[in-house]
């Protein structure tokens, strides 16, 4: 591959990825927010959101996608998603003395603007979506960046940044 000129894949892939990335991201968000009404939910949506960043990494190289979602930020979001989920569960104790109590009023979804109809479930979906997207992206980027390489007769784990310098 032509590492010298431009990281990533060919022009066609890059163009298509540039067009599609927003739609894929939006579709992931849609799946997350509609999880309580139709098949889908936090995990499936989170995977789709993470795949946007995976696509960016494949098409443009990891600098571009790490620019959008840094490793540190991803790990913070990872923890944040899990903590949000727990917070929602513990709020059930504050409201009605029961862990995981569905304390927001449940409504049947009729008419417009009744998306949040299942109490805490959409909120849980959002939390899971954040967690899954961040952690999947982290797993991908960590496994993608690390290479095993012979350096002066010894095998070392190197990240691709270091390899380029040598």
């Amino acid at each position, binding site marked *: 591959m032509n590492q010298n000129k431009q990281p990533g894949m060919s022009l066609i892939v890059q163009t298509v990825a540039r067009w599609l990335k927003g739609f894929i991201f939006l579709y992931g968000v849609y799946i997350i927010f509609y999880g309580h009404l139709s098949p889908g939910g936090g995990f499936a949506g989170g995977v789709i959101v993470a795949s946007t960043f995976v696509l960016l990494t494949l098409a443009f190289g990891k600098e571009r996608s790490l620019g959008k979602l840094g490793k540190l930020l991803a790990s913070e979001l990872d923890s944040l998603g899990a903590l949000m989920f727990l917070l929602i569960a513990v709020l059930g104790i504050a409201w009605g003395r029961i862990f995981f109590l569905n304390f927001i009023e449940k409504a049947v979804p*009729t008419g417009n603007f009744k998306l949040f109809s299942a109490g805490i479930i959409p909120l849980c979906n959002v939390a899971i979506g954040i967690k899954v997207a961040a952690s999947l992206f982290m797993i991908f980027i960590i*496994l993608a960046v690390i290479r*095993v390489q012979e350096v002066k007769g010894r*095998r070392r*784990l190197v990240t691709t940044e270091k390899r380029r310098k040598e």
Partner: protein
Amino acid sequence: MIYAMCFILFLIGLYGATCKKNIVKIILGLVVMEYAVNLFLVLQGWRKNGQAPILDGRTNLEEFAARAVDPVPQALVLTSIVIGLGILSLMVAIAIRLYERYGTFDVTEMKRLKG
């Protein structure tokens, strides 16, 4: 019949995980085994011409009970897929580290430990 095929898939995975020498093949064997169980679990709730188990205000409950698929196995499978993902990524990370230390994926050449 279809359950028997799941079980065969499970045994293939078990064979791969226990009898193969290559770390990557062991990992693949474990994944096949796990997915055989997931398939079996989700088939428990399957129903021919079933409908999605989503209730709204207009649903007729008796018809719903007669036609809807069982949602519990789907929830269980989703959870076990997530757990499987966690195990898989940990295994791959350890495999990379092992390759770094030993320069091979062959488990017969990794014998610093006796037990």
